[in-house]
C-alpha cells in the first residue's frame, strides 16, 4: 500500500507525458522530481529527438516516389509508439518547414506491426502523400523531405477501420489518394493471408495517376479472389453509381469502404441510404488540403458541445461568449496569450494580418475569426 503510494508519487510528474512508459515512468518521475520544472525529456530529446516522451517523434527513413506527384514516406517512430493500431486509421504528422511546424493527417498505408523488408526488420510505419495543386505542405512532403528529417507524430486514430477477421465479401470504392487507407487494409489482409472476396473500384484521372498500381496487380496475382477495377475519369468521366448493379451485381451483399473526395462520398452515402444499407457502409472523409474558405461560418466548441453561426468579423472569443461557453481571456487585443485555444478542425483567420490558421494550430481567439466552419477544443 505504502509502496504503491510512493510509486504513484514518484510517477506523478511524468504521468502526463509518458503514459506509454511502463516501468520507466518511475525512473522518469523520480528524475523529474529533481530536475523540476524541467522534465527528463527536456534533456533527453536534445540528445535524440526520438527519445522524447512528451510527444511522439519519428524520423523519415525513406521517401519513395509512387507517381509523378505522390510519394510514400517510411517513418521510424520514436520512443513510446504503439504499433497496435488498426488498418485504415490515420496519423497526425507535424513537419518543420522554415522554422515552423505544420500539422496534417494522413492515412497509414501499412498494416500494424508491419516491417518493411530492407529495413532490417526495424519497426517502421508508412504514409502516402499526394501533392495537391495548392497544398504547400503536401508538395513539400512529396518533393522536399529528405530521409533523416525528424517529424512529430500523433497516435493513430480514426474509425475507418477493418476488423479482423475480414468480412467474406468486401467492396472498396476509392478515388485519388482515397486509396491510401484501403491500401493498409489490403496489405493487412495480405500479410495475414486472409484475402476474402474483395473487389476494388478505383477512380483516377489517367493510368499514370494510379498509386500502388504494380502492387495492386501483384496482389491480384497472389490472391485471385481480389481484383481492382480502374475507372479513368479523364476518358470516361465520373463513375456513375447506377452502374454498380451492372459491374458488381452483388454490391448489396458486400461490406463497403469508401474514401475519396467529399462530393463522391456524399453521393455514395445517399445511394446506400436509399438502398437501406447505411450500416454496411464505412466512409472516410479527407479534409482536402485547401486554404480557408470564405469568411465566417459555424464555430463548434467541442467540449462544451455548443456551436454558433458567426460572420467573418466576429472574433472566436466573442463567438464563444455569445454561445455561453466559458472562454479564457485577458487583454482582448492580442498581446497576452491568455485566450489561446487549439483549432481542432477547419480554418480561422488572424484579424490583424489575415494570417491563416488551420487544424492543429493554436489560435488567439480574441483576434481570430472563423474562415469557414471550424471547431475549437474547449
Amino acid at each position, binding site marked *: 500500500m505504502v509502496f504503491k503510494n510512493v510509486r504513484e508519487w514518484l510517477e506523478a510528474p511524468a504521468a502526463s507525458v509518458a503514459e506509454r512508459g511502463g516501468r520507466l515512468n518511475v525512473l522518469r518521475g523520480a528524475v523529474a522530481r*529533481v530536475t523540476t520544472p524541467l522534465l527528463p525529456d527536456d534533456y533527453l530529446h536534445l540528445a535524440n529527438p526520438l527519445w522524447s516522451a512528451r510527444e511522439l517523434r519519428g524520423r523519415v527513413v525513406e521517401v519513395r516516389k509512387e507517381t509523378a506527384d505522390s510519394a510514400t514516406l517510411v517513418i521510424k517512430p520514436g520512443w513510446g509508439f504503439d504499433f497496435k493500431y488498426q488498418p485504415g486509421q490515420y496519423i497526425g504528422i507535424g513537419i518543420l518547414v522554415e*522554422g*515552423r511546424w505544420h500539422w496534417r493527417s494522413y492515412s497509414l498505408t501499412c498494416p500494424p506491426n508491419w516491417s518493411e523488408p530492407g529495413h532490417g526488420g526495424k519497426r517502421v510505419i508508412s504514409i502516402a502523400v499526394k501533392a495537391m495543386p495548392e497544398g504547400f505542405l503536401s508538395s513539400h512532403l512529396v518533393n522536399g523531405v529528405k530521409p533523416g528529417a525528424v517529424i512529430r507524430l500523433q497516435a493513430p486514430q480514426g474509425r475507418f477501420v477493418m476488423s479482423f477477421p475480414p468480412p467474406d465479401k468486401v467492396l472498396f470504392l476509392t478515388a485519388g489518394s482515397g486509396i491510401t487507407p484501403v491500401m493498409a487494409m489490403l496489405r493487412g489482409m495480405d500479410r495475414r493471408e486472409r484475402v476474402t472476396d474483395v473487389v476494388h473500384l478505383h477512380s483516377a484521372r489517367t493510368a499514370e495517376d494510379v498509386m500502388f498500381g504494380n502492387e495492386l496487380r501483384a496482389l491480384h496475382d497472389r490472391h485471385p479472389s481480389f481484383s481492382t477495377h480502374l475507372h479513368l475519369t479523364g476518358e470516361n468521366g465520373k463513375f456513375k453509381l447506377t452502374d454498380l448493379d451492372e459491374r458488381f451485381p452483388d454490391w448489396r451483399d458486400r461490406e463497403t469502404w469508401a474514401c475519396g473526395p467529399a462530393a463522391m462520398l456524399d453521393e455514395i452515402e445517399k445511394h446506400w441510404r436509399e438502398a437501406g444499407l447505411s450500416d454496411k457502409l464505412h466512409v472516410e472523409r479527407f479534409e482536402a488540403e485547401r486554404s480557408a474558405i470564405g469568411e465566417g461560418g459555424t464555430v463548434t466548441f467541442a467540449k462544451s458541445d455548443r456551436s454558433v453561426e458567426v460572420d467573418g468579423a466576429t472574433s472566436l472569443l466573442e463567438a464563444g461568449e455569445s454561445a455561453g461557453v466559458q472562454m479564457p481571456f485577458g487583454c482582448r487585443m492580442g*498581446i497576452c496569450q*491568455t485566450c489561446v485555444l487549439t483549432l481542432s478542425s477547419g480554418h480561422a483567420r488572424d484579424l490583424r494580418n489575415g494570417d491563416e490558421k488551420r487544424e*492543429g*494550430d*493554436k489560435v488567439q481567439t480574441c483576434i481570430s475569426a472563423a474562415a469557414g466552419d471550424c471547431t475549437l477544443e474547449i
Partner: protein
Amino acid sequence: MAITDIKAFAHLTEADIEMLGQELDAIRRSVELSRGERDAKYIRRTIAAQRGLEVAGRAILFGSRNRWAWLTGTALLSVAKIVENMELGHNISHGQWDWMNDPEIHSTNWEWDQTGPSSQWRRAHNYSHHTYTNVLGKDEDLGFGILRMTRDEPWRRVHLVQPVANLILAATFEWGIALHDWDAEKELSGHPKKWNSEPNKEFARKAARQVAKDFVFYPALTGPAWKSTLKANATANLARNLWAYAVIFCGHFPDGAEKFTVEQLDGETSGEWYLRQMLGSANFKAGPAMAFMSGNLCYQIEHHLFPDLPSNRYAEVAVKVRELCDKYDLPYTTGSLGKQYLLAFRTIHKLALPDKFLKRTADDAPETSSERKFAGITLPSLPTAAQMQETWHDTHIIPVDPATGQRYGLRSAMQEARVVLKAKAKHEKEVLREARRALKEKARQEKQMLREAGVALQERARHEQETLRHKPFWAKATRRFG
C-alpha cells in the same frame, strides 16, 4: 497627476497618432513575415545552451567542496538560471515563439525555474502588466505593491522603510514576483479567500518543488558536499534575483518612463496604446552579450510595443522605432545600465519621504509628469508659436516647423521645458539671493544705526558724567544737605 491625455502630452494630433500606429503595425508585420528558420534555430540553440550550462554547473558542484569547483559551478548555474529566466521563461511565456507551432516551445505550456507557477505569472504579467502598462491603480507592477515609485501615489508611513524594502525585494525577487502573481491570480480568478482554491494549490505545489529541488534534492545528491552545494544553489538564485530585479527596474523606473491615469484608458485607440507603451518604458544600452543575458529586455520599449515578437529581433526593431521617435519628435528613453538604475534608485529613496520634503509635483517630477507640465511654458524659440490660437492645447500642437520642416513634438517640448524650468529655477534663485542681499543690507544698516545710536548714547552719558564731575562744589553740597 500623471498623464490623463496622451495626445496633449505627446504634442500629437489624432491623425499623427493614428499614423504612428500604422507605422508600428508595419514594423510588426515585416518581422512576422520574415520569421523563419533563423529565428527557430536561435531559440533552439539557446535552449540547448541553457540546458548544457545547467547540467555542467550541477555536475561540477558535485566537487563543490573544492573552492574552484564551487566558484565555477556556481557561476555556471547562475548564468544558466539567468538565461532560463530571462531569455527562455519570460520570452517563451510571452508567446514569442508560438508561431513555430512547437508544443515544447509554446506559451501555453512552458514552465520556468522560478518559485511562482508560470501560469500565474502569465496572467499577472502578460495580461495585467502588459495591457495596462503604467496605468495607476491598474498596473500592479508599478512598485509591486511595496514601493512607492511615483508621487501620484499618496505617501504612507510604511514608505519610510522603502530603502530596506527595496534591498529585500532585490534579493528575493523571485519570491516577490511569485507572491505578487499569486495575489493577482486569486483576484482575477475570483478566489480571494478559500484556502484550498486552485490558485493556492498550484502555488504551493510549485513553490514546494522549487525549494525542494534547490535546497534538498540537489544538495543531497552531492552527498558529503551537500553544504557547499546548498550554498552554491542559494548563491545562484540570489545572483539571478538581483540581475532580474535590476533589468526590470531599469526598464520601468528610470526618469522618462511615464505614468498614466485611468482616464487615459477611456476609449484608447490602438495608436494611443502603442504610444503609452513607448512613453511608459525605458531601455538601457547593452552589447550583444548583455542583451542576451537580459533576455533582450534592454529593449524594453520594443518589448512593450511588441511583446510577442521574437526577442532576437528586438535589436533591429529598435533601429526602426528610434527612427519613428525622431520623425515624430518623441523621446526614446535610454542610457547606460548604471545610469538607468541610479535614476530608479534615486526615485526609490526620494519617494520614501513625505511630500512636504519633495520639491516637484506629480505634474513635473522626474519620474512622472503630465501634460500640465507644459502649461504656462512659453516657447520663445518657435516663431510660429505666437501666431497660434489662444487655447493651451493649440499653442502646444505645432506639427511642423515651416522653416526647417522639422516636426515639433514632445521631445523638443521636454527640452524646452527643461530649459524653461531651469531658467525659472535660476531666476527664482536670483530673486531669492537678491532678497537675501537686500535683507542683509537692511540688517547691516540697522546694525549700523544701532551702533551709532549706542555710540551717541554713550557719548551722552559720558557727557553727563563729565558735566556732573565739573559741577561746582556748592552745587553738590546743596544737593547733599539741602
